[in-house]
């Protein structure tokens, strides 16, 4: 029989473990609650349609930052999505070669590098040459952050496709590239695009690498070779500003970003989760 002491110890440890979980999600609740409470009021129609008004005047917005974020993230994805998926294919379909080993190492290393340093690289490579901050350099930095993310998820998803599917295709006499591009990839396109969405949500919130690449702007940018405003950088600059109105808009922008991140993460995780659970 279990002694009383051991039973009490068992119970109190269980309570401690569960308390740990509650402490762990308390910040999530607090962050979400504050972002909604403070940000909700800022989300007026002009918030989405106007550029910043002079301090003191009402009706300013951050349309320029919203558009800017779309432009920079969009530019980054044009290169990053195909490149990331192709590298994912390379890793899952031709594994254990020398190229694959080095690529795997490079991808892990890249994901561990602080994103700030990727921004520094983009500064050295593009901003210093062009002698101006630009949408190009910001997009370049985000692209480099995005590629390994997409590669990782694509690789994982393609590896879940059973070997028999590949063999069936090859047995029909199809070349491997056709098996991969026509059978395997379309078969897991949902999971792969979930990975792409997750990566998009992730880089939409990246701030540090944009500080000295895209920089920021008080209004709409006229060309991609100009500095450009983005939501995360706007949150940062407004949050450390002394004006209440700017701070409130900073919360509004944070609410937009958090919503985007949560919806994308929630939906895609539910999708990927049900897929993998269904297989077991």
């Amino acid at each position, binding site marked *: 029989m279990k002694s009383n002491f*051991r*039973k009490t*110890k*068992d119970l109190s440890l269980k309570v401690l*473990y*569960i*308390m*740990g*979980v509650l*402490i*762990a*999600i308390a910040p*999530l609740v*607090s*962050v979400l609650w*504050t*972002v909604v409470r403070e940000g909700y009021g800022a989300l007026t129609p002009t918030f989405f349609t106007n550029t910043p008004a002079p301090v003191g005047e009402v009706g300013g917005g951050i349309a320029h930052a919203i558009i800017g974020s779309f432009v920079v993230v969009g530019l980054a994805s044009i290169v990053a999505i195909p*490149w990331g998926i*192709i590298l994912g294919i*390379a890793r899952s*379909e*031709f594994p254990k070669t020398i*190229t*694959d080993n*080095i*690529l795997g190492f490079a991808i*892990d*290393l890249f994901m*561990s*590098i*602080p*994103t*700030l340093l*990727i921004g*520094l*690289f983009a500064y*050295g*490579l593009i901003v210093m040459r062009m002698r101006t901050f630009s949408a190009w350099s910001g997009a370049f930095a985000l692209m*480099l952050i995005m590629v390994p993310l997409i590669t990782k998820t694509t690789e994982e998803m393609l590896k879940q496709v059973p070997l028999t599917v590949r063999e069936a295709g090859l047995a029909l006499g199809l*070349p*491997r*590239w056709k098996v991969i591009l026509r059978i395997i990839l379309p078969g897991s396109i949902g999971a792969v695009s979930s990975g792409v969405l997750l990566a998009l*949500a992730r880089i*939409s*919130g*990246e*701030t*540090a690498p944009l500080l000295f690449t895209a920089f920021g702007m008080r209004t709409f940018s006229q060309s991609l070779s100009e500095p450009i405003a983005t939501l*995360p950088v706007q*949150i*940062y600059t407004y*949050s*450390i500003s002394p004006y209440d109105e700017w*701070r409130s808009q*900073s919360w509004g922008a*944070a609410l937009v*970003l958090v919503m985007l*991140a*949560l919806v994308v*993460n929630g939906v895609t995780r539910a999708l990927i989760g049900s897929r993998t659970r269904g297989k077991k």
Partner: protein
Amino acid sequence: MKHRQDILFKNSLGLLSWAFIAVLVAMILSLLHMSGLAWEKIGFSFFTTSHWNPVKHQYGVAAFAWATLVTSLLALLISTPLSLAVAVSVTELMKKRAGRVFGFFVDMLAAIPSVVYGLWGIFVLVPLMRTQVQPWLFENLGWIGIFSEVPYGVGILTASIVLAIMILPTMSSLLREVFQTIPLTQKEAALGLGATKTEMIYLSVVKSSKSSIVAAMVLGLARALGETMAVTMVIGNRNDWMKSIFSPAQTMASLIANEYVEATHDLHLSALALVGVTLLMISSVIQLVFRAIYARGRK
């Protein structure tokens, strides 16, 4: 029989793979090149001194490296027990569905952008620290020495707490994955010998995943060292040695984020790039350590 198109296909995949590897190499070379001037002018004393004064052209990274280390380790100290508790509860204690829901909540912590944590830090955590937590620690535990500075709200401890929150999902999801792979027989063996549930958790789950727990800590450390925005917003940005864990300070990442745009002098820019190189070296070494530990734990 090999299709000729297949060779072409494989080669183009290889080409794009090498292109990515080349970008990584280019990045390392580029950062080294950017920091070359500072290395030439300052040399090794950059790592051993702590005067950072762009006006007098004095640059030393020691104080920032120390603050980076302290904030990251404190974050780890907070986050390790919590992530263990999360992983254990979610995999062993809770019902399957509840476990999934709570696991999902903890994972969502990773979805929130760094800059939003910073914003939350400035307006929620910092006032809380300034008015409640720090005065209490200062009065009751000030004699220990590490709580001995007048509370500002911003500072090392505040940054560590934010970091702890941010690395928690990374660590707990890794632990969760490991705990899920522990064979049922191993747990049943402990239970069959009369162990209580928590004794079983210790004997069959935690004890047998020691190396994975270390791996999770290394991974958390790596994330914490390079985290920039949230830290920049709550650490107080003071270029000086920390006196206590309430001191406003500056990490290597926050220093770069704060000064790089405003730096005008070539040597200043180059010195900041050298801070970046230092950070790059540290994070690469940690990544190598992680790979080694994780690979061993998986065998």
